[in-house]
């Protein structure tokens, strides 16, 4: 058992190292001179020379990588080339925003997706099943930036119900925070709701045919009780596991949503940074996201083994 976990952790290390190399290379590959962007409209030659020196642009690539890796190991992700603010501080500022968006989207997706999936499975083959499937498929097919634009057009521009953009921390003003995040989380949560619905449906269909459900039915329990007590609970387990993994993808999916609604989160920061060639920020954000993703997967793997007796026996 311990050996299995140890093995998983050991495999994660080279993966992480490869991530750092990719992240670093990715930025070095970007065309355009970040220094010229930084130097501003006036492009003072002295400023340009100073900046090149300061950001070690004159050193060989491998040294640039090692310097960077050394700093990363010490928890220093450098400072933004554009604002001079430390990248770790920027991430600390932005991460909660994106997490809030992801959590709200997740809640939206679960509230819509799971009941719809259950209903669709219970009423398999009826009109409601078809309807739910069509809606789910639409949710998967709609480009979420377009959905965002349409919502802004309808709800903000025409009806004036919700702010078109902006962000407020829930600790400062919970109501406004909820208002500004409502549309973005619907946009981001739509595809997820669709995925959850489809998984819940198939998981539920599987459980409904399982022996213990048949037994429960045979015992003469009411169908509603059977579904609620026996089927639903068991069907939910794989869905919850899936949700955990999806959470990581939500963080990534926030890129365009944040761009559309001008939400100062992770995704907007990384896109802005790519366009401004703010290397330090791009590297920091991608590194943190990728590391988080690998860790979540590692945890999920381990949990899966710990919780699943059959798997435990196999190892």
């Amino acid at each position, binding site marked *: 058992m311990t050996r299995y976990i140890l093995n998983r952790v050991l495999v994660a290390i080279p993966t992480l190292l490869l991530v750092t190399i990719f992240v670093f290379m990715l930025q070095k590959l970007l065309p355009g001179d970040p220094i010229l962007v930084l130097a501003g409209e006036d492009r003072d030659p002295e400023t340009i020379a100073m900046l090149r020196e300061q950001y070690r642009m004159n050193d060989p690539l491998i040294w640039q990588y090692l310097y960077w890796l050394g700093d990363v190991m010490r928890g220093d992700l450098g400072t933004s080339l554009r604002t001079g603010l430390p990248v770790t501080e920027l991430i600390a500022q932005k991460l909660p925003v994106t997490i809030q968006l992801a959590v709200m989207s997740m809640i939206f997706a679960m509230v819509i997706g799971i009941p719809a999936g259950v209903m669709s499975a219970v009423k398999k083959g009826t009109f409601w099943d078809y309807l739910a499937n069509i809606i789910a498929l639409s949710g998967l097919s709609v*480009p979420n930036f377009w959905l965002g*634009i349409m919502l802004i057009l309808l709800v903000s521009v025409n009806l004036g119900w919700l702010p078109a953009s902006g962000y407020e921390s829930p600790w400062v003003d919970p109501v406004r925070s909820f208002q500004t995040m409502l549309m973005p989380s619907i946009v981001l949560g739509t595809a997820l709701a669709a995925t959850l619905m489809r998984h819940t449906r198939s998981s539920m269909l599987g459980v409904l045919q399982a022996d213990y459900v048949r037994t429960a039915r045979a015992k003469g329990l009411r169908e509603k009780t059977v579904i609620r007590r026996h089927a639903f609970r068991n069907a939910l387990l794989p869905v919850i596991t899936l949700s955990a993994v999806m959470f990581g993808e939500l963080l990534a999916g926030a890129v365009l949503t944040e761009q559309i609604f001008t939400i100062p989160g992770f995704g907007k920061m990384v896109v802005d940074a790519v366009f401004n060639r703010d290397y330090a920020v791009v590297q920091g954000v991608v590194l943190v*996201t990728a590391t988080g993703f690998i860790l979540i997967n590692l945890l999920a793997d381990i949990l899966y083994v710990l919780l699943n007796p059959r798997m435990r026996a196999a190892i």
Partner: protein
Amino acid sequence: MSDAVIATPAAPVVAPRRKNRAWEKLKRNRSAMVGGIFVLFFVLLAVLAPVLPIPNPAATDWAKIRLSPNAEHWLGTDEIGRDILSRMIWGARASLMAGVVSVMIALAVGVPLGVLAGYFGGWTDQIIARATDALLAMPFLILAIALAAFLGPSLTNAMIAIGLSAVPVFVRLTRGQVMSVKTEDHVEGARAIGLGHLRIMSRYILPNVFPPILVQATLTIATAIIAEASLSFLGLGQQPPAPSWGSMLATAKNFLSQAPWMAIWPGAAIFLVVMGFNLLGDGLRDALDPKET
């Protein structure tokens, strides 16, 4: 099934028969057919664009800026007086091309790597698998944005960027399939009678990993079309005056309240075509699934 293969190792695998059965199943799947019709409709539009009686999609008219839909311009005109209908039709080419070409790139790179990793195992596998893990850990769209920025904004480069970003998915899928197929009896048999690696791979492994890859490819076309639209929306895809649905949306966003139609059509088109590919992909999955009858 596998017995027959072992008996006559040189004979082609049973794939053809199964394919026919799959086709029968697909034909009976109504939603897959609807999806197919959506896709076919847009493919026809894209192919026929040059011969359809529509205005030049790049022809500007200063006197007809941002006209709402009317008899002459069914879908209205855009910010410099071009006909939106004709830009939509020509834009279908960019979107479909982007979807198909980028998936072909992903297949061309991903499948061989996956086969190599799965078939040979060992260090080859370790290296490919770790690199795939590392790439998969990076958000797809961020990877595509960075690559597209690196290559410079153009439709071709957007397709390359999306294709490369989708590679890890195919590597992982192929690798898994190959690993499960290679332990099957008929492959072991082929190896026992001393067939070469290349021959085993092309004759026995590839046909068997093909169905799930086909399903994944169809679904990835849908993802790629959205990704292309996203990149064009950010200014990293198709360049003007050539039309693309994503860049039309990017422009439209500046005129949301004055000319909402500019934003509605391209989004709706993306929606329909992506829906078509998703329906088709779902149908294929059901049809090719050996477990279901």
